[in-house]
């Protein structure tokens, strides 16, 4: 059995919950044991939110061993194989989750908290964020899904699916692209548009990966 942990964070309203649910459903379609959790309730409003996705991938006739499987919906510290952040500064908040040999994908998009808007706090520069993130893991890839979406679709409606595409391009998510597309088709409000955005993200992701870590 192989354990794969995917951690997704961002700011309330960005869609971390939707991404987490799509990945979990894809895992089930491929007969994995899946668990995880999402931020709900108060934290949804402009707060820091996250989604934990955990896959237990079994060999064809492997026996289930309760003592060795995944159980907790929370990813333990230093065990996230893929660490996805939909907001620039938020990448740092729970960086303890990323594993030493994991991959980080960071969306270069800033949502300023009230303290920054009122001038009481400073929003860090991308260089500062990267410098600190790299203290934990140097395998960092930067995408600007919001910019990509705005350029292609005129607004931010494609951010989620583009980001999912980039995440898939890392090869760290243990489900097939076909399965993800099947789930998108079943669950999303505008399935065809979402699939197109996802594929666009996948292609952009391949370019970003090919260029190497930031």
């Amino acid at each position: 059995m192989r354990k794969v942990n995917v951690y997704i964070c961002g700011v309330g309203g960005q869609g971390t919950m939707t991404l987490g649910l799509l990945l979990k459903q894809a895992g089930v379609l491929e007969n994995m044991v899946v668990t995880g959790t999402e931020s709900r309730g108060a934290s949804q409003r402009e707060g820091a939110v996250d989604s934990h996705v955990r896959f237990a991938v079994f060999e064809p006739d492997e026996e289930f061993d309760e003592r060795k499987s995944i159980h907790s919906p929370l990813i333990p510290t230093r065990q996230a194989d893929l660490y996805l952040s939909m907001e620039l500064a938020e990448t740092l908040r729970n960086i303890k989750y990323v594993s030493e040999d994991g991959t980080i994908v960071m969306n270069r998009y800033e949502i300023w908290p009230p303290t920054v808007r009122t001038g009481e706090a400073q929003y860090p520069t991308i260089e500062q964020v990267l410098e600190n993130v790299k203290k934990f893991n140097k395998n960092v890839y930067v995408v600007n899904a919001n910019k990509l979406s705005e350029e292609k679709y005129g607004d931010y409606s494609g951010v989620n699916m583009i980001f999912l595409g980039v995440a898939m391009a890392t090869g760290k998510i243990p489900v097939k692209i076909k399965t993800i597309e099947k789930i998108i088709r079943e669950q999303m409000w505008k399935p065809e548009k979402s699939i197109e955005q996802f594929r666009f993200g996948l292609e952009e992701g391949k370019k970003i990966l090919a260029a190497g870590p930031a």
Partner: protein
Amino acid sequence: MPRIKELISREKGKKVVMLGNEAMARGALEAGIGFASTYPGTPASEVGDSIAEIAQDLPGLTFQYSTNEYVALENAIGASWAGVRSLCTMKMVGMNVAADPLFTLAYSGVVGGLVVINGGDPSASSSTNEQDNRYYGLHARIPVVEPSSTQESKDFVVESFNISEKYDVPVIVNSTARACHAVGVVELGELKDPPKEGYFKKNWAKYYNAQVLTVMNHQKLIGNQNKMIQEYAPVTKLNKILPGDSKTGIITSGMSYDYTLEALNSLGIHDVPILKLGLVYPLSPKQITDFASNLDQVVIMEELDPFLEGEVKKIAYDQGLEIPIRGKELFPSAGELNTDIAMQAYAKAFDKVPPINMDELNLKVFGAAVILPMRTPAMCPGCPHRATYYAIKKAVEGKGYDVVWSNDIGCYAMGALPPFQMGDLMTCMSAGESIASGMSYKTKKQKTVAFIGDSTFLHTGIPGLLNAVWNDADLLLVIMDNRWTAMTGHQPTPATGINWSGKKAKSVNLRDIVTSLGVDYVRMADPFNVKNTIAIFEEALKKTGVRVVISQQECLLETRRRNRAAIEERKEKGVRQYIDVNEDACIFCEECIKEFGCPAMTVTEFEGEKVSHIDMSRCVECMVCKHLCKGCAISVTKVYPGKTILEEKSK
């Protein structure tokens, strides 16, 4: 999401992804409930919400959002006594509200099984305390069941209905926020159709608790509990044992079981016997004794209070078990547990070195995250509460008032955060108004202002306001009426005008209620009309006695959700509206940013000068900024295919 329809899937054996709360709802449906009631509260809200989504598709199933938790439980009792299996769900503090009927319900017992789901909140991410509801089981002699996975969340609810009927007692399913919000795989069982009808079979001795009948019912409850301890608790499939040869054994339940397994695995410990309790109350002395008889020590991992520890120690004393039983000596009582905490504690108990030095790592994280700005939850762009707080802030400004701001449970509680800081206290549902009114007798030099949401007011706020009138308090009560129970997921209230299914329902008029309670001074305000609202608050603050301002404007999230199709359609036709800051006119007074604090307001530069800027990806066009702009710098531009119309800013 169509995912929710899996809740009534008839494909037995199908594996689906479910939220813990949805799994509990599915369990109730597999148990064949005919009635479900709830008052929404995080972390348990989605149990009721998911049933509301499908109740119309299951003839015979009655669902209701009740006005509060005791009303919800009393309704469920009625349905149970009519012979129908009934579910009642609430967050853990809701149980305090429902406690009154609960204790006597335990005496009378049930006819149709009755299960009460409690969503607990270790770490208090959405609550004002961390109370441990397992004590309700001990206190009221009611069985308490605790799942540790989404599969168990479903299965254990089904079994709880069986226990309820077999032992003539309601059952509490205590699920912590982590289990409620866990998302995992559930293998479906058979869906059972709700009964068509119930019938109340009279039985005075069972249902009429007075004097000797009460004592007899109490005796019956004790008898049933003893029977359950003897014949059910030792063999229940809710509990399981993972055998092992180690001389240290672990007793645990709920989420702690999950953390235990993963922590032991990381520490390379594979031979520890584990007693995993699904039935956390009452315990079986026989099972505990059998488990512990060959052990040198027992470690108990549980969240919050030392509940199991206390119960196991009682049994150990009675059975003469003289081994160390270690619980809260190793694990904290406050806050949520997790695998990391489990790893540190078990490393200590088993004399191992944990693979991660948490102190070192935490220090490293702290050092790296120092540049990270704090991000507290905030009111959404376009939130009417923000406009209300802004207006009252302006009404107070420069008047020299010393104001006590009493706050309450709901989205508006975020008024305590900058830039308003109007929350000096927050306790429990509707406590704010009565605490403020009690204070008002003793704080003549201070003004007491209380905020309460429409849903919170209708939950338990009416008696408090009535009391304030009757006892002549000096209170300005601001009812923050956004038409919905917004914080928990936009459930309707008795004033919304629709019921759980979205169908038109009778609605109460808040002003009529307030007037009928004897409040002479009632004013209606539209917070998006900034000037008027400020004037209303200025006047209300000058007066004394009980005054009520109902600040009414629908939650914009809900308005926009309802109009989503129309908004999309307009977009596709090329019709757009832009709210812009006219950079020449902006004097950068920062009223919109620092005083109003709208999340869609940002700062940009124009010809070397700082100016305000509206992030149109976040703006929801409430237009409040336009009314409060001191430089008249905000304009609205409407774009139609082929033409653009600029509306000048009006003051």
